């Protein structure tokens, strides 16, 4: 069984699958938004605003409760050209990262967010009570509460399609294979080879994002090959799951509660000596 960082076999036994994910290779994204359309259509995700943003070809804006794939468009001068004569497109289809250490899942009080037998992170809409904790826990700003519905929604990595042996709708629709679906182990190998090829071809700015199990989220299930710094695409450069520090936080809360107990005791006892 792949992906040793998630003990899927221990949790799911016979039902466990190899951990799957996405490798989104932005160097071959053409910005067609087929992924956005396929995702909306397959998952019956409601319309969330037909706005003109003025932000290049991106009128989607950002991931959210009703946007589970988002193609970012960045128009930048190439690094080696000064002035307006040169222009470089950066296009990248963003998605939920399906973190190994998923803060949304860890803080969810109802258990609505859970880890599937594929190693993905999914919200169960029949359990979510719309507390909103996952929204502030996600270091990527992915999951959000749907205003008119009250519950939190995000990419399911097409859980229903996975169960039927199909690949997720966005990957199936991607005409350039910028979005690659597969077993995470295979994807990591493929990504490593791809970044080495690009470096050999002189594309030194190519870098992988979210592929490292040693990072602050213990590796993403959906990771990327980027051509610029993550923040240029609206991604945090070094996200850390907030629950890494939970022990520290509970310790501080315990110490503060004990200090309060001491203060209360002192307040009721202080006057006694004077009597």
């Amino acid at each position, binding site marked *: 069984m792949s992906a040793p960082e998630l003990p899927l076999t221990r949790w799911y036994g016979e039902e466990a699958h190899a951990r799957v994910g996405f490798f989104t290779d932005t160097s071959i994204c053409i910005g067609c938004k087929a992924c956005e359309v396929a995702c909306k259509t397959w998952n019956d995700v409601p319309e969330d605003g037909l706005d003109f943003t003025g932000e290049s070809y991106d009128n989607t804006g950002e991931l959210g409760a009703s946007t589970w794939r988002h193609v970012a468009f960045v128009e930048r001068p190439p690094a080696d050209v000064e002035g307006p004569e040169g222009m470089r497109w950066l296009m990248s289809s963003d998605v939920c990262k399906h973190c190994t250490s998923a803060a949304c899942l860890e803080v969810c009080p109802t258990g609505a967010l859970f880890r599937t037998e594929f190693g993905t992170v999914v919200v169960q809409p029949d359990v979510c009570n719309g507390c909103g904790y996952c929204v502030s826990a996600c270091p990527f700003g992915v999951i959000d509460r749907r205003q008119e519905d009250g519950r939190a929604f995000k990419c399911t990595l097409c859980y229903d399609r996975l169960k039927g042996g199909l690949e997720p709708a966005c990957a199936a629709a991607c005409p350039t294979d910028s979005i690659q679906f597969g077993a995470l182990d295979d994807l990591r190998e493929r990504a490593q080879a791809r970044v080495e090829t690009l470096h050999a071809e002189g594309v030194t700015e190519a870098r992988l994002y979210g592929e490292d199990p040693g990072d602050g989220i213990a590796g993403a299930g959906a990771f990327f090959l980027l051509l610029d710094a993550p923040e240029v695409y609206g991604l945090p450069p070094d*996200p850390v799951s907030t629950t890494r520090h939970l022990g520290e936080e509970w310790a501080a809360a315990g110490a503060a509660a004990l200090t309060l107990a001491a203060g209360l005791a002192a307040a009721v006892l202080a006057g006694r000596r004077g009597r």
Partner: protein
Amino acid sequence: MSTAAPDSYYGRPILKAPVWTWEVPAYFFTGGLAGASAGLAFAAERAGHEVLARRTWPVALGALSASPALLVSDLGRPERFLYMLRLVKPTSPMSVGSWVLTVGGLATAAATLIDRTGRLPRFGPVAGGAAALFGLPLTTYTAVLVANTAVPAWHEARRILPFAFAASAAASAGGAAAIVTPAGDAAPARRLGVAAGVAELAATEAMVRGLGSLGAPYREGPAARLAWASRASTAGGAALLGLAGRRRAAAAAGGALLLAGSLALRFSVMAAGRQSAADPAAVVEPQRARTGAP
């Protein structure tokens, strides 16, 4: 290679705005008031301050009764509030807090009823002890709840925020008890209100300083205005209670100011989180510094 300066995607926030509405900081206040009041009532009872204890239990119960209503109305699906108790989940401060509130609430109701009716007096110390025991974490877990997020102004204050909330809760409890208790019996409440008010001011100041540039929301905008209101009320309340608290009117005014300062602090922290989450630089810059990016 790429640009050296921290960048963003059209200035858009990286994090989603917290969806919590006014009910949540209001609950941080009522939960803190309830927890510290239960602790004060129990301590007063044990130390023989019977009048103070008798007046303080209903404060705890009243604040506790308001708490679930606030929390339920903030949910996206209020009819599913009981789903909060589907699990006991230590990695979710909200799950832990739901249980603390439930058990602490029931114990406080029992302690208050026993104290007011005089029935089942044998169970008084048990119920009161449980109310105080669960009341203490009720004042501080809410700090863990906001600290355990990706929001920089909350998360990076994780070591000090529980102390600020505990102090604020104690100040509000001292203030409330000073209002409802005859001055002759309220000396411990006044001591608590003054000392905790000073501690609240100190902890809040330490938090903002410790945050450095991430504390910007406390220096500008809605969070800063609320923080200013909180400081002014708390300082005024502590001074009034400390200097003239033996007089009924001064005790009432000072207690009310401490309550207002405590309430404003929770709203200030909530607003600071909202401002912090909206600022992509607050997310990107510390992370870039950590990775050693140019």
